[in-house]
């Protein structure tokens, strides 16, 4: 219990003593704390304890599945609407495509995220690297790396590695 209103209604100055009583005079419990237990008591306590913990959390699992189901449905309905509006930005990406085509012929941008900006950034990084030791590099192709098994990009992988390396 968080609050015992009756305690604070008392004005006779006995509040602390009564708190003491509330806290330490316990109602009759099944196991007496100061006594040693026999085998059946121990076994009963263990089984009851585990059962109650599982039951309580199982009820929470059921609740979460039920509420999760409702929210998933609601989420799908919401997602269905923005899809109609999606075609408009496509024309914008189409306009960007010719720019990508002007790049060296052997530089097919990754199909999924065809972005001339990304390629420009990669070229700039390489040029900067080359300038440092007086060499010039030519970018022939940019291909997306798919790592077998992980399905993550190198950058995502590096980020994850970084975030999950605590020791």
């Amino acid at each position, binding site marked *: *219990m*968080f609050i015992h209103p009756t305690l604070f209604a008392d004005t006779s100055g006995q509040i*602390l003593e009564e*708190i*003491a*009583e509330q*806290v*330490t*005079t*316990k*109602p*009759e*419990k*099944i*196991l*007496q*704390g*100061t*006594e*040693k*237990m026999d*085998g059946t*008591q*121990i*076994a009963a*306590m*263990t089984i*009851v*304890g*585990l059962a*109650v*913990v*599982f*039951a*309580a*959390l*199982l*009820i*929470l*699992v059921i*609740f*979460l*599945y039920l*509420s*999760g189901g409702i*929210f*998933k449905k*609601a*989420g799908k309905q919401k997602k269905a609407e923005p899809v109609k509006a999606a075609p408009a930005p496509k024309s914008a990406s189409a306009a960007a495509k010719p720019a990508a085509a002007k790049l060296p012929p052997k530089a097919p941008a990754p199909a999924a995220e065809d972005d001339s900006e990304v390629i420009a950034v990669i070229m700039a990084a390489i040029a900067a690297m080359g300038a440092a030791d007086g060499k010039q590099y030519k970018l022939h192709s940019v291909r997306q790396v798919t*790592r077998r*098994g*992980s399905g*993550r990009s190198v950058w995502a*992988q590096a980020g*994850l*590695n970084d*975030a*999950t390396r*605590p*020791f």
Partner: protein
Amino acid sequence: MGGVIDFFTNTIQGLWEDSGIHALFADGGWKNLLMILISFVFMYLAIAKGFEPLLLLPISFGMLLTNLPMADLYHADLWQLVDGHVDYGKVLRDGGLLDILYLGVKLQVYPPLIFLGIGCMTDFSPLIANPKSFLLGAAAQGGIFFTFVVAGLLGFTAAEAGSIAIIGGADGPTAIYVSTRLLTGGGAITTGNIALAAYTYMALVPIIQPPIMRLMTTKKQRAVKMEQLRTVSKTEKIIFPIAVTIIVSLLVPSAAPLVGMLMFGNLLKESGVAARLIDTAQNALMNIITIFLGVSVGATTKADQIFSLKFGGVMLLGVIAFSLGTACGLLFGKIMYRVTGGKVNPLIGSAGVSAVPMAARISQKVGAETDPTNFLLMHAMGPNVAGVIGSAVAAGVLLSVIG
């Protein structure tokens, strides 16, 4: 002239007899000395080895303060039951500094407030996205109840066995909450004893868990990659703490202070409208409470009260409790692996012991050993935060059965 010399020697003798040094070498003083040395060991572990320093350092310093003879910072005898209850008026009148701070432990104020701060820092979305995790959080509480069996068979009383068993919950505030209520003084075990064991082993989780995890799982099981978790909406995150509070408090009322405050903190966080309160709860308030809690819990390890073989017994049973919790979680993880046809990586089961986020990081680490591209961290966070709720429920059960 003789009178002056007499006065002088008497005064010196009186001062000497009142000094702590004299008391250290008087009857039973060696016990204090030993406890002070033990406090140095824990200080060393906290400072040099980085074992949960935020808690072990205050606890071990409280241990030092309380065992300095004649300093009278803490009086174990004030906390003895008189006619079935503690005489709080006497504590307020005669108590030392640490007695007054210990009021917050004894009246069970500090642990729920710490839970408030933890709630502000915990993200329950991995659990909401994968409710099955709750079962792993429940299974790992097996460590509590099986340790209860071991302690009971070794001849500890029900209250002692319950207090030792709760160490297996791997949750410091919960362990303090339960043990301070069960251990009513006079016994050989104190709350400080339990807290020392709990925090030491929480720091040792990265050493205790991995061997058990490798032993109990096959390489194939450890390599299982789990489906990415769905994203959880804000509304769900807001409903979750409210619903958990209502459900758990109705089922196990004695767990309400812990779970209620945990969920209150989480609601503050997820609501997004109480930034100032969150800031205080998870920083200033939590730090203040941690200092009060640590130093006063450490003070309960007074030599004449605590020193016996049982101190070692508690430390030994504590590590058994942690290991059993890990094993139970893994076992249930293996069951889920079977039932789901290999979709669940059993390694996330060991995260069901509630040491957040350490246990989940261990699952991640051991999983990545087998396959570096496997990321279990978020999957393991589900059982991990479920373990916090699970151990609070287990605490409630212990408190309502043992009197």
